[in-house]
């Protein structure tokens, strides 16, 4: 089975969030970038496990400029066979989804995986958009994915619970916690990643259905009101009479 895993480059989870240029741009100064954890820990690792069990190939795809290459190489070090970068700074999720869908359809991928959301834009848009463009099913927030021939058994989170379903390839799935365990690349993987193919393809037409105008930080919290450990009842009293939430 030919598997395509979408990876996004995001600021490390400990990054200080700040903005520049009149709050219109994320301040990358001193920020370390990583593969979006949902893409890496769950989507990519599960794709590799499926390949190890059933054969096939795993390609990672990213829509971005050349400064994304070190992040993409990390996915190769974890075990992807090859990588593709669509050479475009995407305007929004729809713009990136169109590029990925075009590549997936031109190259006959049977399963497309991505994380349930990125930790920077928190869109939860990519998987659904790719599926809709390809006229395939989209399985969101999946926590288990098993393949038996061309049929997948998937567990996904739904409103108020979970559901187990069956579906034939091709389809698109977004991965959530539970689908796999994160892998740390070993030295052999890191060495091999240097020579694995990272193909750069030029984008199809790009458009901006949406655009971020400005960012803002939430107002700073006022000071924390401390309550004595000897009298926790005071806390309940404050929650009832001051905060009015009990």
């Amino acid at each position, binding site marked *: 089975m030919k598997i395509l895993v979408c990876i996004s480059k995001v600021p490390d989870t400990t990054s200080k969030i700040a903005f520049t240029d009149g709050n219109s741009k994320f301040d990358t100064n001193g920020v370390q970038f990583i593969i979006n954890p949902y893409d890496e820990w769950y989507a990519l690792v599960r794709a590799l496990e499926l390949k190890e069990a059933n054969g096939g190939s795993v390609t990672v795809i990213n829509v971005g400029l050349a400064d994304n290459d070190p992040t993409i190489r990390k996915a190769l070090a974890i075990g992807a066979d090859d990588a593709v970068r669509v050479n475009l700074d995407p305007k*929004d999720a729809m713009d990136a989804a169109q590029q990925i869908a075009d590549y997936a359809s031109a190259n006959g991928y049977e399963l497309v995986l991505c994380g349930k959301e990125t930790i920077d834009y928190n869109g939860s848009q*990519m*998987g659904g958009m790719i599926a809709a463009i390809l006229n395939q099913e989209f399985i969101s927030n999946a926590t288990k994915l098993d393949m038996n021939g061309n049929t997948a058994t998937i567990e996904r989170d739904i409103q108020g619970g979970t559901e187990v379903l069956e579906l034939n390839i091709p389809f698109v799935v977004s991965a959530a*916690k539970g689908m796999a365990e994160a892998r740390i690349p070993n030295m052999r993987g890191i060495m091999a990643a240097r020579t694995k193919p990272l193909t750069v393809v030029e984008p199809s037409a790009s458009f901006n259905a949406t655009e971020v105008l*400005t*960012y803002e930080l939430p107002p700073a919290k006022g000071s924390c009101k*401390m309550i004595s450990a000897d009298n*926790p009842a005071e806390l309940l009293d404050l929650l009832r009479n001051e905060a009015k939430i*009990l």
Partner: protein
Amino acid sequence: MSILVFANTAKNEVHKSAYEVVSYGSQLAQKTGDTVTALVIGDATNISSLSDYGADKIIHVKDAKLSSFQPSLLAQAINQIAEAEGSKIIVFSHDLTGKAIAPLVAVGLKAGLVTGAVAIPETENGFIVKKAVFSGKAYAHVKINTDKKVISVNPNAVEKVENKKSANESEATVNLGEARIKVIEQKIESTDIPLTEAEKVVSAGRGLKGPENWGMIEELAKLLGAATACSRPVSDMDWRPHHEHVGQTGIAIRPNLYIAIGISGAIQHLAGVNQSKVIVVINTDPEAPFFKSADYGIVGDAFEVVPKLIEAAKAMNI
């Protein structure tokens, strides 16, 4: 024209989130001069109640193909109703259903999509939606450039405002393709309060020392009418189920009250909870970073403080 609002149902009733999104649509309609059409798909007994929050019209679609959760068919149905109503703005809740469908609807209608909205859009200078980004550590003001627009609204982010209308209710039919997903089994949690919908949450971390000590956390949660949650190490060590893990890589919640017990407040944990309206932190370490993000704090041992809280809650009849 009408703003089309997808009103989610659960257990044959209109879901709480549906009132929030209908009210959101109604507050937006007052700015744009539109009317509000609420779309209910599947069985629900109390759909008329949507008019209490501003629905001018309620469309009910019942189609056997939609009796199981089929996102692509739901999107087809919504797009057909949007077309028939001439709707240019479609509103969802950014819950698990909205996350599954809104991107499909946006592609189908060639509409710009903003997910996770936290405020009514500004419409004076273009159409600009404020959304949460960086896991709640910031907001972005996003302009939608397309003629048609799809918005999904963060649960519990926008107050619902009563706005009684006498809505016209009708049934509509849609023309759907074949279902491709075969649902084998559904497990709907019946007794517990689902964490993502809970208005109050009691959460505990490594400070509890072991899974055997969660009895008091559950008891306090029950007394307060709260759901229980946990930090990542606790879920990684399998002290608590994965679905209770809140934080950057677990689930993000925004309850009215979040009580964190024995959680130091690492930045990744804060990212999942910092949109809570009131945060209470109970920790033995006065230097725990969580106190900086808290509204109320107690420096003390959970094993002493929590039993006292339980006693006090019982005495106060909470």
